[in-house]
């Protein structure tokens, strides 16, 4: 097995093991988000909204796991790695930096996937939400490309935030809640108007959610663009973020070596 594949598997391992070995996450990452989902669902029920809106909420709630993982498990990750002394060991090793990020992303997708599936399953059972999967391959393609695109964005942020300590943490905090709104986690994003929707589409989860809503709830989803168009845009975003991540990482590592910011002063 080539070095970089081994490295990616090695870096993914703690995340995969973490998801399986630490059952405490079920409370914090599944049961607590269900309370948030419940609040939206009862709100929609009280308003007499169409039942598909309850489906939007469950879908959005499940995808939240990936978004949170991208912010805290990717974008801010190098901040924590630097704090505990891992970053310098990663950078001294001969593996490609993209292999390191790919390992983080693959492990993150697995752990967030387990959380998302649990949320989806419980949401469907508890709230009796119905979804119809008429084009499973299309849905799988949209889901997969959405994941690649949002993790590609996370990889780019990880590179950019590599040298910034608490600033990275603050930016992740800043990105967390507003994205729930502008990306339409719990409602069709078209409701925000064409300009906000278009601007929010730079964040892949916006178009990914919109496309999945259309594929699961048909016309009730009030889609922003045709699904095929959204898939093409998502593909472009995925490639763009991955390429940007590669260059950003190379640039930031060089800058970090020059300015002495790859390690903490006491390390």
């Amino acid at each position, binding site marked *: *097995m*080539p*070095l*970089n594949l*081994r*490295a990616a*598997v*090695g*870096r993914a*391992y*703690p995340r995969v*093991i*973490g998801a399986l*070995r*630490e059952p405490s996450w079920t409370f914090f990452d599944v049961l607590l988000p269900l309370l948030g989902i419940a609040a939206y669902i009862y709100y929609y029920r009280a308003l007499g909204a169409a039942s598909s809106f309850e489906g939007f909420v469950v879908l959005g709630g499940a995808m939240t796991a990936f978004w949170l993982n991208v912010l805290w498990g990717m974008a801010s990750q190098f901040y924590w790695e630097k704090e*505990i*002394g*891992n970053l*310098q*060991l*990663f*950078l*001294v*090793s*001969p*593996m490609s930096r993209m292999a*390191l990020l790919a390992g983080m992303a693959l492990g993150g997708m697995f752990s967030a996937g387990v959380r998302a599936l649990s949320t989806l399953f419980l949401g469907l059972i508890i709230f009796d939400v119905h979804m119809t999967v008429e084009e499973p391959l299309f849905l799988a393609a949209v889901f997969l490309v959405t994941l690649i695109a949002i993790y590609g964005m996370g990889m780019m942020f990880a590179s950019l935030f590599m040298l910034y300590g608490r600033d990275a943490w603050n930016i992740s905090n800043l990105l967390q809640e507003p994205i729930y709104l502008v990306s339409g986690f719990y409602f069709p994003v078209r409701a925000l108007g064409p300009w906000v929707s278009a601007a929010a589409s730079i964040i892949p989860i916006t178009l990914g959610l919109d496309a999945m809503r259309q594929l699961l709830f048909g016309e009730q989803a009030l889609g922003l663009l045709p699904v095929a168009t959204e898939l093409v845009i998502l593909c472009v975003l995925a490639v763009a973020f991955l390429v940007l991540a590669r260059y950003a990482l190379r640039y930031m590592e060089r800058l970090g*070596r*020059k300015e*002495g910011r*790859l*390690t903490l002063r006491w*390390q």
Partner: protein
Amino acid sequence: MAYALEVSALSRAFTGKQTVVALENVDLKVKEGELFGLLGPNGAGKTTLIKILSTLLLPTSGTAKVLGYDVDGEASKIRPLINMVSGGETSGYGLLTVRENLWMFSQFYGVPGSVARERIDGLLKAFGLEDKANAKVRTISTGQRQRMNIIRGFVTDPKLIFLDEPTLGLDVTTSRTIREYIRDWVRARDDRTLLLTTHYMREAEELCDRVAIIDRGTILACGPPAELKRRMNHASTFVMDTTSFDPAPLSAVRGVKGVSADEIESGKRVRLVLEDESAISDVISAVVSRGGRIVSLNKVEATLEDAFIEMVGRGLG
């Protein structure tokens, strides 16, 4: 003669509110197969030098070659050949076991699974950590963690390893185990090189083929420990136990080349390096005039520590 490290006119400054010069015009050559020590007080520039040599930091000026490759332009050729371990590091993931952590880091160097397992088993045994192989890292003690870190450094079978204070804060038995392993590892093959920084003079004296004494970013002396001690022939070393007093002004007494002091039960143990023995009478007067009382005074044979005190003017710490 092949050199593992060739450092020439190397300088590194950190700019910020104030510019701090961590290394200034450093020249150093370490031969392949050497166990080389870098001695210096806190802030002397040891860790900065290791960071440059391990490709984590770029020099401000000058050049550094590691195993024939330049740290600036050829870092990717250096990295497969080296590894580093710092004393007191907290690397790895607490939820993984010791064995899993070691395997993970070995994968970053592309070590095949079966080879990694074999090496990990051998190293766990050599460092007496077999019984903790399947313990989660967050449950093991500081000393066990440090042994795991050192194993991490050797599991990739580097040609050159940097050990930055590897025995810092460890108990006597663990330190001895580490020292024995280090010595055997270097001697086992001609092409293995080890650069060690340590606070413990005896450790450097016992282990190193050559040592460099560094202070304020400059190499003050470099050579085998015996040679550095020989340079002390013209000087005399005294050890004086006293009641409590402030020994700092002693360094200003005429004829005193260096002073180091440690706390002991009765007060202070002061180690003095004198240009000639006649200066001791002025030292005694200085101690008494500052309220100290001399409990014992002995002339001793010079050690590496005395060579260090003579060159730096103070002890480590």
